[in-house]
Protein backbone atom coordinates (compact mmCIF):
# COMPACT_ATOMS: atom_id res chain seq x y z
CA UNK A 1 0.00 0.00 0.00
CA UNK A 2 1.46 3.32 -1.04
CA UNK A 3 1.66 6.15 1.45
CA UNK A 4 0.21 9.57 0.91
CA UNK A 5 3.75 10.92 0.31
CA UNK A 6 4.49 8.25 -2.30
CA UNK A 7 1.30 9.04 -4.19
CA UNK A 8 2.09 12.75 -4.06
CA UNK A 9 5.62 12.17 -5.33
CA UNK A 10 4.34 10.15 -8.29
CA UNK A 11 1.75 12.75 -9.25
CA UNK A 12 4.29 15.55 -8.95
CA UNK A 13 6.66 13.64 -11.24
CA UNK A 14 3.87 13.24 -13.79
CA UNK A 15 3.06 16.95 -13.42
CA UNK A 16 6.69 17.89 -14.06
CA UNK A 17 6.66 15.76 -17.20
CA UNK A 18 3.50 17.50 -18.39
CA UNK A 19 4.84 20.96 -17.53
CA UNK A 20 8.07 20.46 -19.48
CA UNK A 21 6.86 18.53 -22.53
CA UNK A 22 3.43 20.05 -23.13
CA UNK A 23 3.24 23.39 -21.35
CA UNK A 24 6.76 24.60 -22.01
CA UNK A 25 7.46 25.38 -18.35
CA UNK A 26 10.25 24.34 -16.05
CA UNK A 27 9.39 21.60 -13.54
CA UNK A 28 6.95 22.92 -10.95
CA UNK A 29 7.92 24.43 -7.61
CA UNK A 30 5.99 23.11 -4.64
CA UNK A 31 4.55 26.06 -2.73
CA UNK A 32 2.74 24.20 0.02
CA UNK A 33 0.96 21.02 0.93
CA UNK A 34 -2.15 20.42 2.97
CA UNK A 35 -5.35 18.48 3.34
CA UNK A 36 -8.06 21.08 2.83
CA UNK A 37 -9.88 21.03 -0.48
CA UNK A 38 -10.00 24.41 -2.16
CA UNK A 39 -12.92 26.03 -3.89
CA UNK A 40 -12.53 25.10 -7.52
CA UNK A 41 -13.45 27.77 -10.05
CA UNK A 42 -12.05 25.29 -12.56
CA UNK A 43 -11.35 21.77 -11.44
CA UNK A 44 -11.07 18.40 -13.09
CA UNK A 45 -10.66 14.88 -11.72
CA UNK A 46 -9.84 11.49 -13.17
CA UNK A 47 -10.29 8.24 -11.29
CA UNK A 48 -7.62 5.58 -10.99
CA UNK A 49 -9.21 2.38 -9.77
CA UNK A 50 -8.05 -1.14 -9.09
CA UNK A 51 -9.32 -4.03 -7.03
CA UNK A 52 -8.44 -2.29 -3.78
CA UNK A 53 -7.28 1.11 -5.00
CA UNK A 54 -9.62 4.02 -5.56
CA UNK A 55 -7.96 7.35 -6.13
CA UNK A 56 -9.12 10.57 -7.75
CA UNK A 57 -6.37 12.72 -9.21
CA UNK A 58 -7.43 16.31 -9.68
CA UNK A 59 -6.26 19.76 -10.56
CA UNK A 60 -7.89 23.01 -9.51
CA UNK A 61 -7.08 26.50 -10.75
CA UNK A 62 -8.56 29.95 -10.99
CA UNK A 63 -9.98 31.09 -14.30
CA UNK A 64 -6.95 33.31 -15.14
CA UNK A 65 -4.61 30.44 -14.30
CA UNK A 66 -6.69 28.05 -16.40
CA UNK A 67 -6.52 30.49 -19.29
CA UNK A 68 -2.74 30.75 -19.00
CA UNK A 69 -2.34 26.99 -18.86
CA UNK A 70 -4.64 26.53 -21.84
CA UNK A 71 -2.74 29.11 -23.87
CA UNK A 72 0.52 27.39 -22.98
CA UNK A 73 -0.84 23.97 -23.81
CA UNK A 74 -2.29 25.06 -27.15
CA UNK A 75 0.58 27.43 -28.06
CA UNK A 76 -1.78 30.39 -28.25
CA UNK A 77 -0.98 34.07 -28.06
CA UNK A 78 -1.07 35.78 -24.66
CA UNK A 79 -4.18 37.78 -25.51
CA UNK A 80 -6.14 35.02 -27.21
CA UNK A 81 -9.42 34.17 -25.50
CA UNK A 82 -10.92 30.74 -24.96
CA UNK A 83 -14.46 29.75 -24.07
CA UNK A 84 -15.45 27.86 -20.94
CA UNK A 85 -15.84 24.60 -22.84
CA UNK A 86 -12.30 24.84 -24.20
CA UNK A 87 -10.89 25.65 -20.77
CA UNK A 88 -12.52 22.68 -19.10
CA UNK A 89 -11.46 20.47 -22.01
CA UNK A 90 -7.83 21.54 -21.52
CA UNK A 91 -8.04 20.92 -17.79
CA UNK A 92 -9.56 17.50 -18.42
CA UNK A 93 -6.75 16.59 -20.80
CA UNK A 94 -4.17 17.79 -18.30
CA UNK A 95 -5.56 15.63 -15.52
CA UNK A 96 -5.89 12.71 -17.93
CA UNK A 97 -2.17 12.95 -18.69
CA UNK A 98 -1.38 13.23 -14.97
CA UNK A 99 -3.37 10.07 -14.25
CA UNK A 100 -1.68 8.22 -17.11
CA UNK A 101 1.73 9.32 -15.88
CA UNK A 102 0.93 8.20 -12.36
CA UNK A 103 -0.41 4.87 -13.57
CA UNK A 104 2.70 4.17 -15.65
CA UNK A 105 5.03 5.11 -12.83
CA UNK A 106 3.22 2.80 -10.43
CA UNK A 107 2.79 -0.15 -12.80
CA UNK A 108 5.40 -2.29 -11.05
CA UNK A 109 4.38 -1.29 -7.54
CA UNK A 110 0.62 -1.64 -7.30
CA UNK A 111 -2.18 -3.76 -8.71
CA UNK A 112 -3.47 -3.06 -12.24
CA UNK A 113 -5.49 0.16 -12.37
CA UNK A 114 -7.97 1.59 -14.83
CA UNK A 115 -8.11 5.25 -15.83
CA UNK A 116 -11.55 6.80 -15.89
CA UNK A 117 -12.82 9.67 -17.99
CA UNK A 118 -12.24 13.23 -16.73
CA UNK A 119 -15.00 14.98 -14.84
CA UNK A 120 -15.22 18.73 -14.47
CA UNK A 121 -15.91 20.56 -11.22
CA UNK A 122 -16.96 24.15 -10.62
CA UNK A 123 -17.20 24.99 -6.93
CA UNK A 124 -16.76 22.71 -3.93
CA UNK A 125 -16.42 18.92 -3.73
CA UNK A 126 -18.07 17.04 -0.88
CA UNK A 127 -15.56 14.51 0.43
CA UNK A 128 -17.49 12.89 3.25
CA UNK A 129 -16.64 9.37 2.08
CA UNK A 130 -13.05 10.12 1.26
CA UNK A 131 -10.61 9.08 3.93
CA UNK A 132 -7.67 11.12 2.77
CA UNK A 133 -7.24 14.42 1.01
CA UNK A 134 -3.89 15.68 -0.21
CA UNK A 135 -3.56 19.10 -1.82
CA UNK A 136 -0.26 20.36 -3.18
CA UNK A 137 0.06 23.86 -4.57
CA UNK A 138 2.60 23.96 -7.39
CA UNK A 139 3.86 26.93 -9.36
CA UNK A 140 4.59 26.67 -13.06
CA UNK A 141 6.09 29.98 -14.15
CA UNK A 142 3.62 32.57 -12.87
CA UNK A 143 0.78 30.08 -12.66
CA UNK A 144 -0.32 28.35 -9.48
CA UNK A 145 -2.28 25.12 -9.59
CA UNK A 146 -3.54 22.82 -6.88
CA UNK A 147 -2.86 19.15 -7.44
CA UNK A 148 -5.33 17.05 -5.51
CA UNK A 149 -5.38 13.43 -4.44
CA UNK A 150 -8.52 11.90 -2.98
CA UNK A 151 -8.14 8.35 -1.70
CA UNK A 152 -11.16 6.57 -0.36
CA UNK A 153 -11.39 4.08 2.49
CA UNK A 154 -10.18 0.93 0.81
CA UNK A 155 -7.53 2.85 -1.10
CA UNK A 156 -5.74 4.04 2.03
Amino acid at each position, binding site marked *: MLSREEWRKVVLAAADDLAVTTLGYEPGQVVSNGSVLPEMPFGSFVALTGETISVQIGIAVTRPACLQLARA*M*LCMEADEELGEEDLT*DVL*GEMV*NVLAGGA*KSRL*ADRVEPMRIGLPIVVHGFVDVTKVAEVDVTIVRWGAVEAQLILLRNEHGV
Partner: protein
Amino acid sequence: MSILIVDDSKAARMILKRALNQAGYGSHKAEEAGNGAEALAKIAETQPDLVLCDWNMPEMSGIELLEKLNADGLKARLGFVTSEGTEDVRQRAREAGALFFLSKPVTPEGLQEKLAPLLG
Protein backbone atom coordinates in the same frame (compact mmCIF):
# COMPACT_ATOMS: atom_id res chain seq x y z
CA MET B 1 -1.46 11.07 -47.32
CA SER B 2 -4.23 11.54 -44.80
CA ILE B 3 -4.18 11.10 -41.03
CA LEU B 4 -7.25 10.75 -38.84
CA ILE B 5 -6.81 11.97 -35.25
CA VAL B 6 -9.27 10.38 -32.84
CA ASP B 7 -9.55 11.85 -29.36
CA ASP B 8 -12.50 13.04 -27.28
CA SER B 9 -10.48 16.07 -26.15
CA LYS B 10 -10.32 18.94 -28.62
CA ALA B 11 -7.19 20.15 -26.83
CA ALA B 12 -5.53 16.77 -27.28
CA ARG B 13 -6.37 16.80 -31.00
CA MET B 14 -4.86 20.28 -31.33
CA ILE B 15 -1.72 19.22 -29.48
CA LEU B 16 -1.33 16.19 -31.71
CA LYS B 17 -1.81 18.29 -34.85
CA ARG B 18 0.85 20.68 -33.62
CA ALA B 19 3.20 17.79 -32.86
CA LEU B 20 2.59 16.41 -36.36
CA ASN B 21 3.58 19.76 -37.84
CA GLN B 22 6.66 19.99 -35.64
CA ALA B 23 7.63 16.43 -36.53
CA GLY B 24 7.59 17.31 -40.22
CA TYR B 25 4.21 15.85 -41.18
CA GLY B 26 2.41 19.16 -41.62
CA SER B 27 1.84 18.54 -45.31
CA HIS B 28 -0.33 15.53 -44.59
CA LYS B 29 -4.05 16.11 -44.48
CA ALA B 30 -5.21 15.74 -40.88
CA GLU B 31 -8.84 15.05 -40.07
CA GLU B 32 -10.43 14.67 -36.65
CA ALA B 33 -12.98 12.54 -34.86
CA GLY B 34 -14.21 12.99 -31.30
CA ASN B 35 -14.81 9.35 -30.41
CA GLY B 36 -14.58 5.81 -31.73
CA ALA B 37 -18.02 5.75 -33.29
CA GLU B 38 -17.38 8.95 -35.25
CA ALA B 39 -13.99 7.58 -36.28
CA LEU B 40 -15.52 4.37 -37.52
CA ALA B 41 -17.76 6.31 -39.89
CA LYS B 42 -14.88 8.49 -41.13
CA ILE B 43 -12.60 5.51 -41.70
CA ALA B 44 -15.27 3.75 -43.74
CA GLU B 45 -15.91 6.93 -45.72
CA THR B 46 -12.43 8.35 -46.31
CA GLN B 47 -10.06 5.42 -45.66
CA PRO B 48 -7.25 7.47 -44.09
CA ASP B 49 -3.67 6.29 -44.51
CA LEU B 50 -3.09 6.36 -40.76
CA VAL B 51 -5.26 6.64 -37.66
CA LEU B 52 -3.85 8.14 -34.45
CA CYS B 53 -6.21 7.10 -31.71
CA ASP B 54 -6.74 7.77 -28.01
CA TRP B 55 -7.51 4.81 -25.76
CA ASN B 56 -10.00 6.12 -23.18
CA MET B 57 -13.00 7.72 -24.85
CA PRO B 58 -16.74 7.80 -24.16
CA GLU B 59 -19.17 5.82 -26.32
CA MET B 60 -16.51 3.72 -28.03
CA SER B 61 -12.96 3.44 -26.72
CA GLY B 62 -9.91 3.24 -28.93
CA ILE B 63 -9.44 -0.49 -28.45
CA GLU B 64 -13.13 -1.09 -29.11
CA LEU B 65 -12.72 0.88 -32.33
CA LEU B 66 -9.77 -1.25 -33.43
CA GLU B 67 -11.58 -4.48 -32.56
CA LYS B 68 -14.65 -3.28 -34.44
CA LEU B 69 -12.54 -2.44 -37.50
CA ASN B 70 -11.05 -5.92 -37.35
CA ALA B 71 -14.46 -7.55 -36.96
CA ASP B 72 -15.89 -5.57 -39.85
CA GLY B 73 -12.92 -6.39 -42.07
CA LEU B 74 -12.03 -2.71 -42.45
CA LYS B 75 -8.32 -2.29 -43.04
CA ALA B 76 -6.88 0.69 -41.19
CA ARG B 77 -3.35 1.37 -40.04
CA LEU B 78 -3.86 2.50 -36.46
CA GLY B 79 -1.55 3.55 -33.65
CA PHE B 80 -2.50 4.59 -30.15
CA VAL B 81 -1.58 7.97 -28.68
CA THR B 82 -2.84 7.88 -25.14
CA SER B 83 -2.21 8.63 -21.49
CA GLU B 84 -2.22 4.87 -20.94
CA GLY B 85 1.16 3.21 -21.10
CA THR B 86 1.31 0.09 -18.96
CA GLU B 87 2.42 -3.21 -20.46
CA ASP B 88 -0.98 -4.91 -20.17
CA VAL B 89 -2.59 -2.16 -22.23
CA ARG B 90 0.25 -2.19 -24.78
CA GLN B 91 -0.08 -5.96 -25.05
CA ARG B 92 -3.81 -5.71 -25.74
CA ALA B 93 -3.12 -3.08 -28.40
CA ARG B 94 -0.49 -5.27 -30.07
CA GLU B 95 -2.78 -8.28 -30.05
CA ALA B 96 -5.49 -6.25 -31.74
CA GLY B 97 -3.05 -5.22 -34.46
CA ALA B 98 -2.05 -1.70 -33.42
CA LEU B 99 1.03 -0.50 -35.28
CA PHE B 100 2.48 1.41 -32.34
CA PHE B 101 1.76 2.78 -28.91
CA LEU B 102 2.80 6.29 -27.89
CA SER B 103 2.19 7.58 -24.38
CA LYS B 104 1.14 11.15 -23.66
CA PRO B 105 2.48 13.74 -23.18
CA VAL B 106 3.35 13.69 -26.86
CA THR B 107 6.59 15.17 -28.14
CA PRO B 108 7.44 15.76 -31.83
CA GLU B 109 10.47 13.50 -31.37
CA GLY B 110 8.40 10.68 -29.95
CA LEU B 111 5.86 11.02 -32.73
CA GLN B 112 8.52 11.10 -35.44
CA GLU B 113 10.12 7.95 -34.07
CA LYS B 114 6.81 6.11 -34.44
CA LEU B 115 5.72 7.60 -37.75
CA ALA B 116 8.97 7.62 -39.70
CA PRO B 117 8.83 3.88 -40.49
CA LEU B 118 5.22 4.28 -41.62
CA LEU B 119 5.15 7.60 -43.44
CA GLY B 120 8.79 8.17 -44.25
